[in-house]
Each structure stands twice: as structure tokens, then as C-alpha cells.
């Protein structure tokens, strides 16, 4: 009977089987600190899991690394984002089976992996990583470390929020971008832009069926010094700041100045290239590199500045995630993996190669201070994106506590936003429902 079930059932059957098998392994596999692995020679082959642009960066460091260690082969695999998170989860749940030697882990997943799968990431202090601590911004370093100081990841990207805008479109609409100080003013400008040029102020994946669609809300909420959770892990997404952000998003949407584009890499590139135009593009600092690489023909049409504040005179800097390179304890070639990570992220030579290859915004201070790093960019009309990001990172940005329940909060928020954008739900009510749902699922308290 089971064998005659049609294909539909297989997905679940496989999932159930995997979960079962996985759970058993989690229960009994104690990760072992394999001495051979740490003392081993620097040779052989290492595999790295990452995705498109960060992968390009790491690829660029390989030839120089191989000059130091000619016997080493480095295989950079573009697993894809977000597919990589599930692959890592599956591997970790299986006690490290099938994991590569180096993994590129997002700041938003770090806490989860460390909390849910203890002992699966190498404490890089085994290799003396603590000596690098002073070379990175302390906030970024701490998010990659455990409470006891264990170092689980070396910061690869450290992203401040870049507020990118189409200078040609603003010009065409007759709006001086420098005069805009708050999001309310920006939305007013968006109405003019839509009238005069037909271009939406920004595009959103309103149904959020391809990917989460919470970036704008997270930015606006961070600009009000808030997030899904506070420092103690209580739920704050339905607080005053969160509700105000969703009200701004609803206001823009109701004014008809928000385009609806499904969230995907291709659609992002189409926006950068102006094929599906947008007037603004708030994004992580990494977007500057992607723009130059993927939309060279748009040189001169993109500008960059600090994001407008939500309240007049409010915060104009926000951290927009980041990623780490980590080594799983299951790796059989940890020493070699570490040497590569250390070369790519812990030396100026490696950092330069990686930055040129992929354009990910680095956290390595000698790199930020290096000559020419904050030089004006021709692509951005003589503006310097890097100078803006360095200035932002220097501002006292609020620490974001992702907790181990970020994924649930993200999903709950995205659903609430969809209700507001597609069905006209009330922001306060939608967020209250979302917060209650997260509380019910996780047992976390709602912050007062």
C-alpha cells in the first residue's frame, strides 16, 4: 500500500524519515574535539559552502592562498541563499554528516546553530582566533561568539545599511534628495516621483511567497532603536516602534507608490539595472559591490547616502546583518580550513582580494583604514559608499538580538505585513497577532 502512494506523499514521508533519523543522531552524537584535525598538516582539499557574491570573493583569494600552500585545493560551492540554511541545518541535525569544511553563516542564523546544535561549530580559539578580536568591530565580533567567549565565526561581511537611490529619477522628478530628512518626507517625495516619472518609490514582495519581505520594516524599526526582541529576548515587534514602521509601510502602499515584485535574485538585478525600476533601494552595504559588478551600465545613475530617520533628528544608521565564516567540528581538515579563513579574513592581503572579488563590505579594521578604501567612486558620481558605511558603523547602532527564534518572528511578521498590504489589516492589530503567535510558539514573553 505504501509503495503505491502517489508522489505527493513522498515529500512528507522523506521529511518525516529524515526528521526521525536526524533526531536520533542529535540525541547520541557527542561532537569530539579531534586532535588530529587541529594539529594536522595544511594540505588536501577543503570545501566551502557559500552563495553567489560572497563565493566570488572567496574564489578570488584562492590563487594567493595556494602560493602559500601549494598542496591545498579549495572548492568554493555556490549552495545558494536561502537554500544553504536548510543544508546546514540538515547536516548539523545529522551530527555533522555531509557538512563542508568552511560554512558561510548569516548573523541571523548564528545564534540558532550555536544554541540548537551545541558543539557543532569549532571554537576557533583552538587556532588562536582570539588574537583577531581587536581587528574587528566589537559588535560584529560578539554576535559570532558564545557567551563564554568561544569564537564560532570570523566576521566576513559587516553590513551597515546603504540607502541607495536613483539620482536620475530624483532629478527627473525635480526632487533634491539631500533635502529629505525623514521617511514621511520621503513618502511625500515618492508621490511626486510616481506622478512625474511613473516609477514606484520602492518595490516589495507583498505576498512574500518567494522569500521573506521584512527588510524595510527591520530597517525602519532599527532606526527607532527597536527589533523583534529586546536584549533579554522578550518580544518587542508589536511595540510602538514596530507599529509605526508598519504604518509607514501601509501609508506608502495605500498611496499607490509601491511596486509589487516577487523577491528573487533575478528581480533584484532587474531593479538594479532599471529594467524594473525603483527610486530607492535601502540595502546592506554589500549592495554597492553588487551594483558595480552586475549593473555596470547604470554607472552615474545610482547615488548613496545615509538612510532618512523615522523621527526628525533620529538615528540615521542601522546595521543590516552580516555573515561569518565558521568551521564545523565534523570537518576532517580543520587546520587547513582555518588557515584559509585566516588568510581570507585575517590578513590585509586576503581581505583585499576577497573585497575586489565579491565586494562584500569587510569588518577588518586594517582594511577599512587602508589607503583608497574610502576613495570616491566613479560609479556613484564621486560619492564614497564606503565612507558612508564606515561613518555608520562608527555611530552607536543598537545591538540586534536575533535569538534562536528569529526565523519564527520573521515569518510571523511577514504574514502580518501581507495581511496589511493585501487585505488592508490594521498594523497594530496585525502585529499584536504576530507577537502573540511568536509567544505561543516559543514561550517567550511579550515585552511591556
Amino acid at each position, binding site marked *: 500500500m505504501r509503495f503505491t502512494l502517489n508522489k505527493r506523499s513522498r*515529500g512528507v514521508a522523506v521529511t518525516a524519515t529524515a526528521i526521525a533519523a536526524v533526531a536520533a543522531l542529535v540525541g547520541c552524537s557527542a561532537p569530539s574535539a579531534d586532535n588530529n584535525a587541529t594539529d594536522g598538516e595544511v594540505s588536501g582539499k577543503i570545501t566551502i559552502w557559500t552563495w553567489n557574491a560572497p563565493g566570488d570573493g572567496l574564489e578570488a583569494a584562492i590563487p594567493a592562498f595556494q602560493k602559500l600552500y601549494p598542496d591545498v585545493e579549495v572548492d568554493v560551492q555556490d549552495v545558494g541563499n536561502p537554500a544553504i540554511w*536548510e543544508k546546514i541545518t540538515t547536516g548539523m*541535525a545529522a551530527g555533522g554528516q555531509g557538512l563542508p569544511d568552511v560554512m558561510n553563516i548569516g548573523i541571523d542564523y548564528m545564534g540558532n546553530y550555536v544554541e540548537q*546544535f551545541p558543539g557543532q561549530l569549532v571554537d576557533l580559539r583552538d587556532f588562536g582566533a582570539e588574537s583577531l578580536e581587536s581587528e574587528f568591530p566589537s559588535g560584529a565580533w560578539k554576535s559570532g561568539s558564545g557567551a563564554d567567549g568561544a569564537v564560532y565565526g570570523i566576521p566576513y561581511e559587516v553590513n551597515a545599511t546603504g540607502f541607495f537611490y536613483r539620482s536620475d529619477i530624483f532629478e527627473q522628478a525635480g526632487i533634491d534628495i539631500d533635502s529629505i530628512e525623514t521617511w514621511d518626507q520621503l513618502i511625500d517625495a515618492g508621490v511626486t516621483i510616481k506622478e512625474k516619472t511613473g516609477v514606484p518609490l520602492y518595490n516589495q514582495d507583498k505576498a512574500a511567497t518567494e522569500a521573506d519581505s521584512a527588510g524595510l520594516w527591520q530597517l525602519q524599526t532599527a532606526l527607532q532603536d527597536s527589533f523583534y526582541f529586546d536584549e533579554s529576548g522578550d518580544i518587542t515587534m508589536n511595540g510602538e516602534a514596530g507599529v509605526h514602521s508598519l504604518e509607514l509601510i501601509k501609508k506608502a502602499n495605500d498611496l499607490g507608490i509601491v511596486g509589487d515584485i516577487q523577491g528573487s535574485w533575478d528581480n533584484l538585478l532587474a531593479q538594479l539595472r532599471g529594467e524594473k525600476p525603483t527610486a530607492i533601494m535601502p540595502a546592506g552595504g554589500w549592495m554597492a559591490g553588487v551594483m558595480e559588478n552586475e549593473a555596470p551600465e547604470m554607472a552615474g545613475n545610482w547615488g548613496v547616502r545615509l538612510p532618512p530617520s523615522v523621527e526628525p533628528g533620529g538615528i540615521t544608521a542601522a546595521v543590516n546583518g552580516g555573515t561569518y565564516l565558521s568551521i564545523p567540528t565534523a570537518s576532517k581538515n580543520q587546520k587547513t580550513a582555518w588557515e584559509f579563513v585566516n588568510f581570507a579574513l585575517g590578513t590585509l592581503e586576503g581581505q583585499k582580494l576577497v573585497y575586489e572579488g565579491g565586494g562584500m563590505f569587510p569588518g577588518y579594521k586594517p582594511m577599512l583604514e587602508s589607503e583608497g578604501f574610502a576613495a570616491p567612486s566613479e560609479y556613484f558620481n564621486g560619492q564614497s559608499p564606503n565612507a558612508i558605511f564606515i561613518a555608520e558603523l562608527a555611530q552607536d547602532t543598537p545591538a540586534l538580538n536575533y535569538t534562536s527564534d528569529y*526565523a519564527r518572528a520573521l515569518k510571523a511578521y511577514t504574514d502580518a505585513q501581507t495581511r496589511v498590504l*493585501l*487585505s488592508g489589516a490594521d498594523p497594530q492589530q496585525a502585529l499584536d497577532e504576530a507577537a502573540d503567535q511568536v509567544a505561543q*510558539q516559543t514561550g517567550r514573553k511579550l515585552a511591556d
Partner: protein
Amino acid sequence: MNVLSSTARATAGPTAEAVPLDAAPRPPRRRRRSSIGHPRITPYLFLLPTIVLFLGFKLYPYLSAFWTSLTSNIGGVITFVGLDNYLRLLNDPLFYTALGNTALILVVQVPLMLALGIVLAVAFNSLLLKGRAFFRMAFFVPIVMGLVAYGILFSALFDSSAGIVNELLGYVGIGPIPWLVDPFWAKISIVIAMTWHYTGQNAIIYLAQLQSIPGELYEAAQVDGANGWQRFRNITLPGLRPALLLTVVLSTIGTLQLFDEPYVLTNGGPDNATLTVGMYLYQNGFKYFDFGYASAIGYALTVIIAVVSLIQFRLFRERAPKPISLKKPTSPKEKTR
């Protein structure tokens, strides 16, 4: 029966058919195990691969998942929590959303698909149809289509801004319809995709059953003056009953476990409009790392499927004994199945 079979086994060999129950005592009987050359363990050896696979890949995961459903990951430690996960499930509004969506899709999609399957099967069986082999194959092909190709295909078809379906509808002045991005239409899209995917399989099952209905029944009915609809209603449908039971039960189980279509097309969205129990299980396990809760959802689903299947078997069994009767009382042909 027992006596017979043990006797038969005892004398297994070319003369087995000639063994009378009161066979005269034969000397070789005592040495049967060694003399036959097949030790008693042989059948079990043949079964061993299946048994090992069953134990390793079915029974063990089932038991392990059950144990997992009684545990929770608290601060990185797998902790026994008793029935907590199940109690949480009973109070989880999203689980009920998922159940409701699944039930709605089940109620709409399965009857639609099976009705379509019957129509197709009758058409495939018709002697008037030219190129029957081609059509049969064409309708069966979707079954073998891989999940990824299927997802890409339907995403391209149903894209609300640049999709082919909306483009075609535009020519006749309809739309654009927000196929995958509106809570209502997303459900419709799932139903359409599933129907496209599985109708052919059901049609093939019906076709096989149709060919077991004797042609004389139709001839006799025709002689008695039954029109086409009456023949379909009173001969074809009753004749299809065993296949109907099979397909209803299989499709119901498949739909209750629905995962592929929402996974590749809508990701359970928008706003959980296409969240199914299978999707919710997946999210909890692989997005939120909550394997205990995911396993509890899996077991809850198993119980639901068992109950629904039992009810279906009941319903069909009660109706099955009714004799097939043509409306005209002159026809005594009560073929027992």
C-alpha cells in the same frame, strides 16, 4: 487447510499434487528437512532484504519520530517533555489554519480530479478515439515530472505580471488574475497544479478497471433501450467502484500529506493561505529546528489519515453489497463482482 498445507510442504516436489490427505506413511517423511535440501530458514533469507529495509527505514524512523515527539530541545539539550508537544498542538492556531487549508483543498480538489479522471478514462476507452495510446501517455506524463521542473513550469505559467496564463486570459479580456500572490487564487493555483499532476494517474487506474467490465452488459443494456447516460450511470460507475475506492483513499491520503505544490509554488503563503499540515511540519523541523514539535505534527497527521481512511472504507463497504441493477426491472443480470 493447515493439514493440507503442512502435508504439501512435507512432500514438496514434483509429486505434490498427488498427495492425498490420508497418504500412506512414507519413510522419507522423517528426514524431510534435510532431504528436501531447503532448510526452513530459506524463505526468511529471501525475505531478509525487505525485512532489514523495513526495520531500518520504516519501523526505526517511526519509533524514533514518536520518541522525538515526546522531547523538546531546551537550551541545546534534548529533554523528555511528555505530551507537551501534543498539548501545544491542540492550542496552536496555525495548526488549525493548516488543517483547514488541507481540508478545503481535499474537498475541492479530490472530487474534481476523480471526476475528470473518470471522464478521461471513458474517453481513453472509447473506440471512437484515434491515437489512444498517445493520449493515454500524454495524460500520464505529468506524473513522472520532477518536482523542480514542475515548480518552475507552474511559476512561469502563473506569474501574475508576466505569466503565460494571464497573457492568454488577457486576449479574451480577463484578468490579470493574481494567481500565486492572492490568498484565494493561491489556493486555486494549488488545486489546478495538483489536478494537472495527478489526474492522469487516476485515469489510468480507472481505465484498467473499465476493461474488466464485460461488454455484454453494455450490449444487453442497449437492447433494453438504455441511453448513453443510463449505461454510464448503471454499468460504468458501479463497475468502477473498486477503483473508485482505491483512488479516493489514495488521493485523500496524498492530499492530507500535501507538501510539494505549496512548497514549490507559494511557500505556504500568502499569509498562510496555502499552509498545509505537511508544510507546517516542514517549517517547524527545518526552518525552526523544532524537531520534537514537527514529529508531533507528523503523528497527529498519521492519526487523522488513519481515521479518515477508516471512514472511507466504511462508507464504501456499506454501499458495495448493493447489487448492480439497471433501471429496467426486466434485467435480471445481477453480476456479482
